């Protein structure tokens, strides 16, 4: 057995050592890059493809700007919501985070609170992806919540936010951190990082530039926190190409996380309730948006036997909040037919392009509530 163990040990040891050295997710020793001043209209923040997390930008920019009228909290499905979709002179800051969990929303709300940037209205984008009792299926995302602590710790130390005691802080344990040293996704990021170092482009476009100078292959953020996708992601696709992406990626991969054991857990109920309760105390009007899905993905979600209980259960729970909190309105746009989003107005199964985001905002604010 010796050769087997030597080979196994050497391979894993090498992967762990390189992963630790690169530390692309800032788990062990790296410090994230940060913008140093507030952006103005027409400017964008170009982030490094690796070694950085958008929370850095969102939190620092919020602290550097005036209190907006509307703040968007959510995951990447809400990333395209921007100021120009709202009536003139409405100021907005989009604090949505890719792959956000409910804990992300809670922490971002704490950041809003302690930064004293409490808006009149919060748009809370929530979908079933954020909530699941079955965390084993979310192990790929679990690193986010750990990283969140790192980041929060860092942001507090840097004085961006005052030190706060967070009831949402997750326990960081050595075991989870250790297993991340042996993670394919982590290692893949490391390989990209090493390749980037060799090519010299890993830090080429990091920083603030004018949007008109933005290279098409880069992704960036506007001053209001809304996202600019790279042309690689946003090139126009016909229905067939889109369905191919959805079938291969979303339905074969993303929906995989929504297993038959998905349920709205009491923990989620409690945390969401706490979040809305706090927002009520601060007199914040909340609009909960259940974002639209591409028709193919929506149909899959409501028809396929292992998924079909998820959406009705999720909607029922969210709608229950409407009765408990008078400051909360619900806007369910899950079925894209309701708000008029076309299939080609999605990047994939669940990420809407800007035209669809505009329709959602228009639908929710005209049909449900008025600004």
């Amino acid at each position, binding site marked *: *057995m010796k*050769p*087997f*163990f*030597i*080979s*196994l*040990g*050497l*391979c*894993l040891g090498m*992967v762990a050592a390189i992963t630790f050295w690169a530390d692309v997710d800032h788990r062990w020793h790296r410090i994230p890059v940060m913008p140093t001043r507030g952006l103005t209209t027409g400017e964008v923040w170009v982030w490094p493809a690796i070694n950085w997390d958008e929370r850095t930008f969102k939190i620092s920019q919020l602290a550097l700007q005036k209190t907006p009228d509307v703040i968007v909290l959510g995951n990447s499905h809400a990333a395209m919501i921007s100021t120009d979709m709202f009536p003139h002179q409405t100021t907005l800051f989009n604090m949505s985070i890719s792959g956000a969990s409910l804990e992300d929303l809670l922490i971002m709300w704490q950041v809003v609170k302690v930064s004293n940037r409490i808006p009149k209205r919060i748009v809370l984008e929530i979908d079933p992806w954020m909530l699941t009792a079955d*965390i*084993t*299926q979310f*192990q*790929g995302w*679990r690193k986010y919540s750990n990283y969140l602590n790192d980041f929060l710790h860092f942001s507090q130390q840097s004085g961006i936010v005052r030190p706060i005691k967070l*009831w*949402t802080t*997750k*326990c960081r*344990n050595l*075991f*989870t951190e250790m*297993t*991340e040293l*042996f*993670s*394919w*996704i982590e*290692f893949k990021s490391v390989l990209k990082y090493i390749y980037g170092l060799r090519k010299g482009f890993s830090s080429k476009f990091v920083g603030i530039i004018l949007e008109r100078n933005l290279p098409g292959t880069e992704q960036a953020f506007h001053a209001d926190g809304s996202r600019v996708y790279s042309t690689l992601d946003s090139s126009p696709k016909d229905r*067939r190409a889109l*369905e*191919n992406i959805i*079938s*291969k990626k979303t*339905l*074969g*991969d993303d929906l*995989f996380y929504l*297993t*038959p*054991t998905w349920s709205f857990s009491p*923990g989620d109920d*409690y945390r969401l309730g706490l979040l809305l309760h706090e927002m009520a105390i601060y007199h914040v009007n909340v609009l909960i948006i259940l974002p639209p899905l591409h028709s*193919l993905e929506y149909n*899959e979600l409501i*028809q*396929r*036997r292992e998924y079909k209980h998820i959406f009705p259960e999720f909607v029922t729970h969210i709608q229950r909040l409407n009765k408990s909190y008078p400051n909360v309105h619900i806007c369910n746009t899950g079925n894209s037919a309701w708000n008029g989003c076309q299939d080609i107005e999605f990047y994939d199964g669940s990420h809407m392009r800007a035209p669809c985001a505009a329709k959602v905002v228009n639908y929710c604010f005209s049909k449900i509530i008025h600004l």
Partner: protein
Amino acid sequence: MLRLQNIVNICNMLFNSFPFLLLFLPIVLGISLKLKGQALLIWLTLASFTFYAYAGHSWFLIPMLITTVLDFYIAPLLERTQQTWKRRFLLGISLIGNLGLLFYFKYSGLILLTCQDSILKWFGIQWGHQLLSFLSVALPAGISFYTFQTLSYIIDVYRRTAHAEKNFWKFACFVSFFPHLIAGPLTRHYQLIPALSKLKEEGIHPRWREGLFVFVIGLNKKILFADRIAILVDSYVVDVRSMTFMTAWLAFLGYSFQIYFDFSAYSDMAIGLARFFGIELPQNFNSPYKALNPSDFWRRWHITLSQWLRDYLYIPLGGNRHGTARLLMNVLITMFLGGLWHGAHWIFAIWGLYHGGLLILYHLSQSYWDRTYIFFQRIITFLLISLGWIFFRANNFSDSKIWLQKALGLSGFHYPAMGSPVEIVFWLILGLVITQTLPNASSFKGFRTLAVPYQIGLGALTALAVLFLNYSSRFLYYQF
């Protein structure tokens, strides 16, 4: 609360998870090696309960405990009692208890839903929603496996071909022994209880080399093959309407390999783990895609279930003792129930009937079939078996019908319009090469006979599998 949840999440484990490999297994094995006698049985049982609770939900323990306690106390009564009616009565209690739990958790929803649909269709009346929601409970993992295990035990005691076990912890360990608990191999009392008796007397004599080898093979099969193929197959199956003739074939052939690598991986890992404890679990797979006919396939695929169905269903029904017509009927009944055993959906019953049909086809054409070239026998068997997986994998009847139509060319012959099939073709060729040319994992003697370069290669492959551990999915048979 959050912290507690987190700890639970960390410990949420199956064989292909870090918590199992790095925490549960070393602790359980380490302590087991120090123990002997009753303490060892108690420890193994409690460890198995812990595994079961964290592999699924803690309430899963309740039906398993009911089954364990019920059969443990009924078996000695059955053994002592002489009067036939009393013995039948006791057997009836056990069957009602065991099958009742299985029926409640697994089939009640299906029956009610079927009644509901029928009444709505024929009389236009909607009813039973509240009852349906009451019956809509999660299926305890492995309930089909341990129920069949205890059933075979109690039936054998009734038939007086087995003795009732007097030691509760030994019996509880037989039911719950964690390597085979969730998805088999379906182990009989005479295969495990004597081994546990020996364990109690002598302590554990681990067979590291043989155990680790089979375990590692299983881990690699699951993570490097089954999980990779699953992503590709799912992308086709998700929308059967847009399948073409070619993608329909790619999908069901891909699924053939996915389910084989997934299920046989679990069996390999279970056998490997049991060997760490010095126990030999029965072989569950013997290169099934090398089968020469449908009958041969069922002697190689999920062997322990096939044997169970043969011993406790097919033979009691009359087997082949009452003429051809009765034999064919018995085959169909056995395969129908065997299909339903897999899942609470009529589509599994159709799958079972399809296999029943294949067995009958083979029986009727055996003289011609067996005279064909072996190569053709193998290819035809593989294709027929693979085609049957359509029923197993499709989401519903209409999907399976469409998929089958496309696969049979009834909707025309088209090149795939969606994406490039290169990746899945690569996996199909690899799957074909592995299943047709490599020997079965059980035929290896472990690391002892494996040459150094192969050991080094296996080590590197296993390292790659470890990198994917965090993203590995559940085993397909977890849901049965």
